[in-house]
């Protein structure tokens, strides 16, 4: 069992710094999801933990042991890749056993572990197939299995679900989460999908341009985003941003931008609301409807409404749950009240 510690970790390629000093403490058995837009440095960070990229500055420890100068296989980690990275010429069984054979583990122990993992992942019937004879979901499971049989101190996942279709993705993220709980293995999970982050993580790390903007439990991050970036990235539909001039009576003095989630807005008659505008368009999701309202200043505000879609062009008022309004200063930092 293991903890992972990142201390002021930096990475530069040539002269460009892509990771600008990340600190992170992962508790034993915790599932940390690193989330952020494409190109923000998630993979680079994960690969530094794995030992596939050198660490330019800072220190990474796994289970209390500094690993900066250790080879990947000496770090006692297992990694699941986006494209699964299965050995195409080997059967599922051989894929699972490969690492164990190299570690010179006795054959009966290898067989026992492979059988156990195959059972856990419902791969028993496919052990003699080659990867190309498997579906995407099954390949994903083999990649998981290859990580599990090693019984490592930590799992590292790099967007493991992004090659699957939407439905399978929902199913697999629950399976991975359940598996991780059951095995209790410390895990770092990288994704660009904020829904994956919200649903799977014990704590999320929201990354932006090589910086960890916020680290915390998903709901905490959702309710109290530390910055404009986090507020806009976490949540779907994203948080509404409003010019404080429109709400000058309640806006904090130093606020440059105000934010409110669509579920904290409601539609009223044109006269009654705090804000008013015309309906630009509606997205009916079934259970509720996202009403996009065009404000007087031309910006759009999304209201999550439980009513039916409304005619485009209709004049509406929007009422706000004022305690839920967040203020952000000129640097995009949240203003704590």
């Amino acid at each position: 069992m293991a903890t992972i510690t990142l201390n002021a970790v930096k990475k530069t390629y040539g002269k460009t710094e892509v990771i600008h000093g990340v600190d992170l403490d992962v508790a034993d058995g915790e599932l940390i999801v690193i989330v952020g837009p494409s190109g923000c440095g998630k993979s680079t960070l994960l690969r530094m933990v794995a030992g596939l990229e050198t660490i330019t500055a800072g220190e990474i420890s796994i289970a209390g042991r500094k690993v900066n100068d250790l080879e990947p296989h000496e770090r006692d980690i297992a990694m699941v890749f986006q494209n699964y990275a299965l050995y195409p010429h080997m059967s599922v069984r051989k894929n699972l056993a490969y690492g164990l054979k190299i570690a010179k583990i006795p054959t009966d122990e290898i067989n026992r572990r492979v059988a156990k993992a195959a059972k856990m992942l419902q791969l028993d019937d496919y052990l003699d197939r080659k990867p190309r004879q498997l579906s995407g979901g099954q390949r994903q499971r083999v990649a998981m299995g290859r990580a599990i049989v090693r019984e490592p101190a930590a799992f590292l996942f790099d967007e493991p679900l992004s090659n699957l279709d939407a439905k399978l993705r929902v199913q697999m993220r629950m399976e991975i989460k359940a598996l991780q709980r059951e095995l209790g293995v410390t895990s770092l999970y990288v994704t660009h999908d904020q829904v994956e982050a919200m649903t799977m993580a014990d704590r999320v790390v929201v990354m932006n341009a090589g910086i960890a903007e916020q680290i915390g439990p998903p709901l905490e991050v959702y309710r109290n985003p530390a910055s404009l970036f986090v507020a806009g990235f976490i949540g779907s539909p994203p948080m509404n941003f409003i010019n404080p001039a429109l709400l000058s009576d309640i806006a904090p003095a130093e606020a440059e931008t105000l934010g409110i989630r669509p579920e904290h807005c409601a539609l009223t008659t044109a006269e009654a609301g705090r804000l008013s505008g015309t309906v630009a368009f509606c997205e009916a999701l079934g259970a509720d409807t996202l009403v996009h309202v065009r404000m007087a200043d031309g910006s759009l505000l999304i209201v999550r409404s439980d009513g039916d879609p409304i005619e485009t062009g209709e004049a509406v008022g929007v009422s706000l749950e004022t305690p839920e309004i967040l203020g952000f200063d000129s640097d995009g930092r949240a203003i704590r009240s």
Partner: protein
Amino acid sequence: MENRVTFNNRWLPFLLIAPQLLVTLVFFFWPAGQAVWQSMYLPDPFGLSSEYVGAENFWFLFEDPYYRASFATTAIFSSLVTLSSMSVALFLAVMADRVIKGSGAYRTLLIWPYAVAPAIAGVLWLFMFNPSIGVATYWLKVLGYDWNHVLNGTEAMGLVVAAASWKQISYNFLFFLAGLQAIPKSVIEAAAIDGASFAKRFWTIVFPLLSPTTFFLLVVNIVYAFFETFAVIHTITAGGPRQDTTILVYKVFADGFVGQDLGSSAAQSVVLLFIVGLLTIVQFKFIERRVHY
């Protein structure tokens, strides 16, 4: 939806393939036909008339110890050329695949030998190893080795193998490098995380995944060693000393054009034709089912 070009004039397609067809007929089928025809005739010593002898040229050929020796020479020569040019090329490709800085220049330099004409490549090696004035010979002498491939058959064989392989390395290198770069990087990384050393990764992951390329090159290199090394042999050893570097193709030339034994020479051509046919079938069979892992 059918995606094909349709011609309104039914003669136009024939007109368009006519030049290629003509070239094939005149330069391939006609000489091949001539060879088959001649292989069944025996010309008189003055070349004025020829007599039909059926398969006699062939029987004579297979009983000729020199011809059998030439078969053995060819087997040794082509195995050595194929083995050395492929293994050196694979080694260089694996190294080039790891190079990040300056890889462009490195690769370009490795490809150059392929642009050298076979006869010129032969002459280059001949000069380097010339028993009296060669640079390499001089250095070998300094090291205490007396090189003379004009007298020593083994040395002659070594020299033609080196010259022939040297040219082919570039070609093999290109294919191996392309093959290596087609292997997903993450597969190699997964193996590294699984604890496989560089050598272990090479033998258990990289080499098996390269096997389609390796097999393709194997056939190409055997064909090369059999049929396209004439110029190298001709410039360096002219088949000698004695018959030590007379491979089958060279013997066709030596017997037919130098020895003027046209019947036997034609029969030898037919044997070679047969070998090419076999190799081509092997290659096509393989291309049909390329992915075999």
